[in-house]
């Protein structure tokens, strides 16, 4: 961890800019999400103002509504801000859950080997081969009965897609790390398998998890929007979700009403780009194969030598 932070801090060149840009945009969205009640002028499902007057349908951007209103009488600016909260909640929940399941599973599978490993690898590979959107749709359907169509259900349907990714990476690194001398040394001092996994393997096999995590987060934003777009994700009365708003706005966009589609769409693209930048930046920083340090050219200095004695050329 100590090395990780130092490496990130010491990043140079393009990677640094990628990382910085991504982080700044992401932070803006995080601020939106955290302070949504104060930033957004209205609630995400509010259709009347404080005096009970209903908002205009598809009202153009202007004084009352900064970005206009959409066909469901919602204030678009408020929906975009609240949408950031929804997106980040779902992303965080799904990434944390898939890391919490995928990493230990990969560790155990790689360390134990044998039939446990074979079965797990087979199951994970099977999940991996199914197109991820299809998988998310199936899970969304299945969870709809049990959990409804809220944030938790949406997050859970994403978890299943991402577990195999962590599993594969962690399992493969574990398989090679298992052969390291320090693992044998741990056995030689009498460490139990669980101790070896916890104290000797874990810290050395989770190096690539932050990168996958950030890239998965970007992917999750897109998948969540896609589910919403198809009407399978979070329903408008549960929370504000950009994908759903975008799908509602498409018909009107053809009629020249551009503002209900533009802003949620822009938010999706920006957040995905920002998270991808962070992920790629981290990858460049942490992956030694990609890391390229910029070195100063060597300048030879004149030698400082005693001049009172003559040099003798050897034979």
């Amino acid at each position, binding site marked *: 961890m100590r090395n990780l932070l130092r490496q990130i801090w010491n990043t140079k060149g393009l990677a640094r800019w990628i990382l910085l840009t991504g982080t700044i945009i992401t932070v803006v969205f995080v601020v939106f999400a955290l302070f949504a009640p104060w930033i957004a002028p209205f609630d995400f499902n509010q259709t009347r103002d404080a005096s009970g007057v209903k908002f205009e349908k598809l009202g153009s951007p202007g004084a009352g509504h900064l970005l206009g209103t959409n066909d469901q009488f919602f204030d678009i600016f408020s929906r975009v801000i609240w949408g950031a909260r929804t997106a980040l909640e779902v992303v965080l929940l799904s990434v944390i859950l898939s890391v919490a399941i995928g990493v230990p599973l990969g560790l155990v599978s790689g360390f134990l080997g044998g039939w446990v490993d074979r079965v797990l690898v087979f199951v994970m590979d099977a999940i991996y081969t199914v197109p991820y959107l299809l998988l998310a749709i199936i899970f969304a359907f299945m969870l709809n009965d049990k959990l409804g169509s809220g944030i938790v259900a949406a997050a859970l349907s994403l978890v299943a897609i991402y577990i195999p990714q962590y599993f594969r990476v962690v399992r493969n690194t574990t398989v090679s790390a298992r052969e*390291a*001398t*320090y693992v*044998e*040394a*741990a*056995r*030689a*001092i*009498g*460490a*139990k398998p669980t*101790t070896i996994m916890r*104290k*000797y393997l874990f*810290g*050395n096999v989770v190096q690539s998890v932050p990168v996958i995590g950030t890239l998965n987060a970007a992917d999750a934003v897109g998948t969540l929007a896609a589910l919403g777009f198809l009407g399978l994700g979070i329903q408008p009365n549960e929370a504000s979700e950009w994908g759903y708003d975008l799908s509602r706005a498409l018909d009107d966009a053809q009629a020249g009403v551009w503002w209900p589609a533009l802003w949620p769409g822009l938010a999706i693209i920006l957040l995905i780009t920002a998270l991808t930048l962070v992920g790629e930046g981290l990858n460049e920083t942490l992956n030694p194969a990609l890391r390229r340090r910029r070195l100063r050219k060597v300048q030879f200095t004149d030698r400082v030598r005693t001049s009172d004695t003559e040099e003798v050329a050897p034979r």
Partner: protein
Amino acid sequence: MPTKPETLSNDGSGQGGGHGAGRHENVLDVDDLAVHFQLQGGALSRLLGLQARVVKAVDGVSVQLRRGEVLGLVGESGSGKTTLGRALLGLVPASGGRITYHSASKGDRRVSEMRGAELRQLRTDLQMVFQDPHAALNPSMTIEEAVGHPLVIHKIASGRALRMQVAEALERVGLSPVERFLSKYPSDLSGGQKQRAVIARAIILNPEVLVADEPVSMLDMSVRAKILQLMLDLKQEMGLTYVYITHDLASAKYFCDRIAIMYLGRIVEIGPTEEIFANPRHPYTKALLKAIPEPDPDRMVPRDLPRGEIPDAAEPPLGCSFHPRCSEAVAGCGWESRDLRALLEEHWTRKLEAYDDEKALIGDLDGLDRPSTTAKVGKGGAGEVRALLDRIRAENPDEPLWSGVRGIEPAGNGVEVQFQPADSPQLRRAGSVDVACVLYPE
């Protein structure tokens, strides 16, 4: 030479070491130990259900480790010395035979039958130092954590007591002032310092036996002697018994009381260090001694050395494993088909101009790769192949392979060479050492 603690006898009047009564003269008894590994074949052979090849890394080794001595296991890579060392700690399971640990305080225990928790408990008494100190330390643990971890694992100390003991162990191995090293990571230390940390971790449990697997071979030459001296000092102070695994006969000569020379999973010669060096008996030992590059400006490059390399352990030579490389080989060494192949190839290397014609006469050599005491060669007519073999023999009539040939019979378009079958020689007493070589019969 620093004094080595004397080998204690069975009278139990042991001083030093701090271990209690009930001592046996030997700390470890290894009896006919075998460690075999199944080689995973390629994907194709697994699909076809072909039999996995078995590597006999250790094959019928019997050896005693005497209390307080330094026993050297010397050999090239693939000799099985490292596997034997690991088997002593139960790090690799025995496929056959027995390892008995005569604990000073807990009585006799059968290492080769221990599993799980029992085996882990054993590691408080038997410890190991590894060849590559950098790889032997977890890169994400500080020196304090790494050295103290054995105490944590076996729930011997915690908190302040743990810190004290870690500091004491580091002090003991010369990593002082201790404060400078406690919070360091392995990557911050030099090779010698890392090896000191590994040694500290090994001695912190106050073990009886330390298996040191090439402890100095990865270190810089300016520091090797320093680490060896540290190990000798620790042995004195703590009454340790060492198994010193190495390929370097020079350091073994200085460091060990007894030496076992290993070749292809077997001990070929074992005896007191002085005797092994003053009067080497096995041709392999002689060759090793001759091959060591000595920093002596009057020495010349040695010329009459064994050819070839250690053969494939999955299919060792028939008879004595060393016979294909041996400079003193005789008729009863176990000559076989692969030796004939080597002989032909050697002949062609020398007589490059004759290669094309003679190769056409002999044909494909791959049939000789399967170990057998009969070898079919040739496709250009029995008489002509026979004549060619006779010509090759005439070139070098002293070649011992020919003495092992019982007969050459015509077979189809070529001939069948029949060799005299032989068993692998057993260790037998010769003077004050034991040798496994047909030159030293009963």
